[in-house]
């Protein structure tokens, strides 16, 4: 394999390859610049003559894969609604390895620490490359240039876009489901492994050549609600357990006790009110500041007697309480972070499951991410030009997937909130290692040591004049971080050897991740 790639400069001045894994790539041209042509792709046309009402496969996953015609070089898609409690992905690839299949492309909507054992299949060549998210040891594996192919990172919306546009063709889509009937109708809200919506599996169900539903909870037809429709499903596989409910929801929904993070969250809530966004819709997440600001914002909403038309979840018990209290009109849910979220989605008609198609897909006739008033999200780095990174740590190693991050930036006011430095490493830097978003979509950076507003947002600067918030420039934040932490050295990377590319929401390449070390 050639280590050199033909690179060209995109509209942000970043070096990106023109061809990746044998497919031509389009460099990022600017927000809203690239226009797709042609038609969406579609799966082969099936016939009822070939399908009974009971699609259960007696021989388990292996038989379903065999009957799907799995072979070398295919692409396997799967969703990540079981998060770190997923029990399927590793056995799936163990099975594929036993079957002697190799050079597969794996296209999960996200990966978690529990997927670390996949490294053996990356090493052996069962998996050629991953298109999805890479973090932890798998991120390191890729970052060190050990993956056979080049990784492709996409946002949740970008994954849907790539699948419908034909940029990512899923040969076999696997849909783990907490509840399904023999026909393949499935949902995520019933059964012992209930995980919430199954929206990340929607694209696979619609566009994959073969669709396999895997469940530990077969119910008689009809499985209601049928978020995944049996009319798209080829096979149903029963397994003992499809996910570990405790790990599906663990850890992320405790409100942080870190006084620094709480301070940042309070600043965010105050900023939202003073900038005139209290009572507009908002993006809700789990963990840390994203969860904490909601509490402080809710207090302010109560005090002012205002409510938000909807919240975009990540649902949690905190969001559910706001819905029940009338502080938000509806929860448009992409994934559930705790069991209260799952229960509310099942029982409350104002709490609905969404997919990346409705919420995030840029190649659709509008999506509701751009109808959100405020999004509060994190980042691994932001630079003096307000460009932000969410995938690599500043040491160059892939650390996170993009998730919905790029998509949520289309909110009217996007706020990046994080401590100014983490374990001595400054988050506000001169130039981000990897650009995942251009500066025109980053409006505010909130840290415990000051708040910087993108100079493009003159309206926000105007509204926040005279505020008691510590408003500073991004340069001041940068200098403060350097003063406390010292100036970091730059990690060594091979700038001729991209190991992964970062896709923008329209499928163009916004940046490359380069091989770390010598």
């Amino acid at each position: 394999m050639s280590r050199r790639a033909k690179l060209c400069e995109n509209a942000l001045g970043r070096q990106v390859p023109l061809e990746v894994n044998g497919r031509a790539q389009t460099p990022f041209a600017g927000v809203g610049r690239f226009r797709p042509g042609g038609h969406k792709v579609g799966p082969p046309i099936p016939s009822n003559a070939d399908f009974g009402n009971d699609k259960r496969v007696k021989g388990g996953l292996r038989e379903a894969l065999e009957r799907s015609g799995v072979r070398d070089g295919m692409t396997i898609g799967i969703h990540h609604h079981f998060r770190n409690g997923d029990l399927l992905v590793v056995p799936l690839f163990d099975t594929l390895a036993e079957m002697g299949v190799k050079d597969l492309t794996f296209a999960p909507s996200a990966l978690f620490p529990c997927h670390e054992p996949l490294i053996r299949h990356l090493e052996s060549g069962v998996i050629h490359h991953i298109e999805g998210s890479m973090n932890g040891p798998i991120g390191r594996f890729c970052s060190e240039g050990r993956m056979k192919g080049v990784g492709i990172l996409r946002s949740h919306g970008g994954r849907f876009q790539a699948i419908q546009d034909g940029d990512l063709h899923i040969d076999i889509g696997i849909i783990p489901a907490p509840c399904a009937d023999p026909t393949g109708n499935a949902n995520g809200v019933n059964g012992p492994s209930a995980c919430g919506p199954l929206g990340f599996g929607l694209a696979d169900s619609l566009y994959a050549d073969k669709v396999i539903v895997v469940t530990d909870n077969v119910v008689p037809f009809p499985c209601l609600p049928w978020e995944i429709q049996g009319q798209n499903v080829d096979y149903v596989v029963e397994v003992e357990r499809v996910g570990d409910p405790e790990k599906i929801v663990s850890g992320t929904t405790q409100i942080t006790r870190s006084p620094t993070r709480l301070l940042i969250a309070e600043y965010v809530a105050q900023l939202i009110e003073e900038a005139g966004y209290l009572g507009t819709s908002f993006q809700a997440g789990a963990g840390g500041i994203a969860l904490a600001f909601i509490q402080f914002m809710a207090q302010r909403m109560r005090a002012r007697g205002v409510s938000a038309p909807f919240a975009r979840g990540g649902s949690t018990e905190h969001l559910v309480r706001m819905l029940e209290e009338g502080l938000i009109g509806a929860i448009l849910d992409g994934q559930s972070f705790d069991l209260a979220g799952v229960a509310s989605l099942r029982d409350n008609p104002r709490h609905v499951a969404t997919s990346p198609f409705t919420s995030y897909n840029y190649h659709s006739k509008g999506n509701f991410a751009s109808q959100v008033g405020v999004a509060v999200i994190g980042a691994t780095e932001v630079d003096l030009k307000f460009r932000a990174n969410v995938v690599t740590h500043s040491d160059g190693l892939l650390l996170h997937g993009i998730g919905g991050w790029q998509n949520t930036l289309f909110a009217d006011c996007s706020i990046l909130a994080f401590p100014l430095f983490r374990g001595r490493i400054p988050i506000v830097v001169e130039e981000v290692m990897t650009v995942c978003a251009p500066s025109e979509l980053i409006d505010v950076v909130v840290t415990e040591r000051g708040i910087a507003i993108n100079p493009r947002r003159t309206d926000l600067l105007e509204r926040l004049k005279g505020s008691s918030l510590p408003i500073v420039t991004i340069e001041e934040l940068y200098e403060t971080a350097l003063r406390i932490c010292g100036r970091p050295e730059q990690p060594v990377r091979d700038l001729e050897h991209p190991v992964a590319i970062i896709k923008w929401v329209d499928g163009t390449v916004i940046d490359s991740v380069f091989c770390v070390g010598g």
Partner: protein
Amino acid sequence: MQGKVRVGRDAKEDLIVELAPAPGPSEIQLESSVATFYGSRIREVVRQTLAALGRESGAALSIRDRGALDWVIQARVEAAVHLAFPEQSGREALPALLDGARFEVPRDRMRRSRLYLPGDQPDLMVNAGLFGPDGVILDLEDAVAPPQKLAARYLVRNALRAVDFGRAERMVRINQLPRGLEDLPAVVTQPVHTILVPKAERGADVIAVAARIRELTERTIWLMPILESALGIENAYAIAAADETVAALAFGAEDFTRDIGAARTDEGRESFVARSRVVLAARAAGVQPIDTVYSDVGNEAGLIAATREAIGLGFDGKGCIHPRQVRTIHEAFRPSDKEVAYARKVRRAMAEAEQRGDGVISIGSKMIDPPVVARALRVLGLAEFYGIPLEEVSR
């Protein structure tokens, strides 16, 4: 010379230094979570610290770092060197002095909140000033386990030089006497405003600390004795009046209740008399009475009630063990609209009396006594501090 020593903590923003005497030039083995960014800088800081201590040779250091800042690394290395080579502990390796770390505070400054910071936990110190406490206390006493006492002393000294605590009064709680006297040389020449003297029981305790400070520095350093025993309460006035540098008298409920053989309750009846006596003694000596900490960190309503109660008893401040308590305490000290309105009335009556050339101040038919006037002026002073308009806003 001793054998291998080990200082520091396996915690974020801290490091563990193991040092063993070894022949030849000193060697540094480094493992760091931030090696990519700061590896060579950390080595350089360690080398400089060893050089300042005259230990360019004779030591083998093994360091495991989790993102400690330079001043923490310096303190840990210095502590290790001094523990391993106690016979040569004359030299210091001081971090650069932060701009703005040195400023004066008046004896009667606002002391509503004072935030305790364990003297051995650097990660809690770095952000403490952001929460806006009136004072931060770098604690060498109860918050530090005995084996870490020496290492904490270097850490606290370096924090005083290198950490930005904002406008907070910089306080250090030394160990109980006589050990506490040994803490003084490391701290009183640094940017510190106030020394807390734990378990003060006699005027002589305060005099000993004040005398030692005068030997070490010409600067005035305020003292805040903490009364936390029956004997301390019995001698409260003598302690408060023992030295002109005493600025405040604090009460410590935890040790006090143990000392009198009672259990600590939410209502605090067991310490009611003692707290009142702290207030009386402090006021009699012209210093500020400061109440104990509120230790149920998650209970905001309880903290508000406890602070209101302290204010009701006459205290000027309350202790905090968590940054989230600071603002709650400050809010509790905010004078109510009713208090401010009444104080304004009193002041207006005062002005009218003055115009009349009349010594008698009255509101309607009610005569106003001088203590009420004094109280009104205090409320208005507090109101000004909180930015509450001193004149009635016309509607």
